[in-house]
């Protein structure tokens, strides 16, 4: 499967080392539709591919939007690209969030750091009144105020979504920060969460998800109502190369979104 060439139509720097690209198919073709939580493999010329989830709206169906953090050779190469440059795209791959199961429920969106990116398409869907959720709450934890993703959009989201934002640290650079300081489990712990009719979507560092799941279970949320997005080494993205195996699961095709109830035993095994 060879990548299709897309053109960078828009580039936004979110904060140092993290940026968002809007990618258009060069011939003006519509890219294949995706579901929130799915990912593409992005190819930087000569340096390799990286799995990056879609972070844009389903309504923006002319393009894929990806938020990327610089952390390896391929992402650093992509980081040097500008509007008009070309990038290879394979996808969409994987299973996304179970949006068809949220009608009438309260949705808890719990994101940490860059983990908000694969959840933003969900937020856009819910803002547009799709899927019939009864209520939506967003709990978002980030490292520090200047590393809050999509922060400029929060005000608009707040019309329809209860948003709780907290940062782990606020230092001198973020002196103007007037919000919460502390880890994400604290507001989650304090929140009133009904154990019935609630569904939680989690994405963030595995440790952060572990502690949040612990808090949710303590509040009586059933394992079957908790969904999380896993990170493993996706290389082929088609279940053929074996790299992203996680117990019996191939994260690239069985995930990246899993129901906690079905993967609990794997989630709690170390170095799996």
């Amino acid at each position, binding site marked *: 499967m060879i990548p299709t060439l897309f053109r960078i139509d828009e580039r936004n720097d979110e904060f140092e*080392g993290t940026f968002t690209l809007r990618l258009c198919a060069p011939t003006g073709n519509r890219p294949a539709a995706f579901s929130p939580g799915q990912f593409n493999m992005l190819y930087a010329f000569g340096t390799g591919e990286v799995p990056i989830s879609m972070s844009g709206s389903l309504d923006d169906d002319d393009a894929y939007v990806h938020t990327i*953090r610089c*952390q390896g050779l391929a992402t650093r190469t992509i980081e040097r690209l500008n509007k008009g440059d070309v990038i290879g795209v394979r996808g969409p791959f994987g299973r996304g969030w179970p949006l068809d199961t949220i009608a009438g429920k309260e949705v808890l969106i719990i994101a*940490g*750091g*860059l983990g908000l990116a694969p959840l933003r398409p969900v937020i856009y869907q819910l803002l547009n009144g799709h899927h019939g959720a009864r209520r939506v709450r967003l709990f978002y*934890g*980030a*490292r520090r105020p200047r*590393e809050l993703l999509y922060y400029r959009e929060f005000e608009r989201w707040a019309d329809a979504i209860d948003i709780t934002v*907290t940062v*782990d*640290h*606020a*230092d*001198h650079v973020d*002196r103007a*920060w*007037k*919000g*919460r*300081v*502390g*880890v994400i*489990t*604290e*507001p989650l*712990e*304090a929140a009133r969460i009904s154990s019935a009719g609630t569904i939680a979507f989690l994405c*963030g*560092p595995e*440790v*952060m998800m572990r*502690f949040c799941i612990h808090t949710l279970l303590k509040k009586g949320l059933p394992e079957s109502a908790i969904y999380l997005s896993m990170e493993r080494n996706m290389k082929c993205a088609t279940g053929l190369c074996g790299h992203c195996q996680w117990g019996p699961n191939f994260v690239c095709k069985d995930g990246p979104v899993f129901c906690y109830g079905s993967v609990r035993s794997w989630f709690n095994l170390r170095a799996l």
Partner: protein
Amino acid sequence: MKGMAQLLHEHPFFAGMQEKHLDFIAGCGENHIYNTGEYIARENEPADHFFLIRDGQVAVECFVPNYGALCLQTLHNGDIFGWSWLFPPYMWTFDARAEDEVHAIRLDGKCLREKCEADPAMGYELMKRFARIVTQRLRATRMQLMDVYSLQWPPLDRGQ
């Protein structure tokens, strides 16, 4: 206007506490409003109170000479602040500052200390509640220490 005992009753910190104990504790409490920027506690000053936050945001801070106040954590509606009144030498270890208008119930630590000594059953009930808060804060602090959203993690397999 709700009575103090009723307010305490509704606060998660006192959930399940016996009426008679709550009535007593209510006798040690008073409503207090702190203005934005006002210090609720200052490091190294006598810790005679603890606070149930009913509304507003409190910053737990440490003053750093060449920097100023560094916020370590914020506390909110439903949280409590202050356990230094329980342990000698009864001095605050951090600053606490109202970040907006803070409505709090201020409880007289000295009065409670004496009551706890005299009534170990109540003392134990109270101590259990504080112990839970302290473990929660410790867990949160440990998570903060891990800095989970950082990229600066040394790989496990280097240098082996």
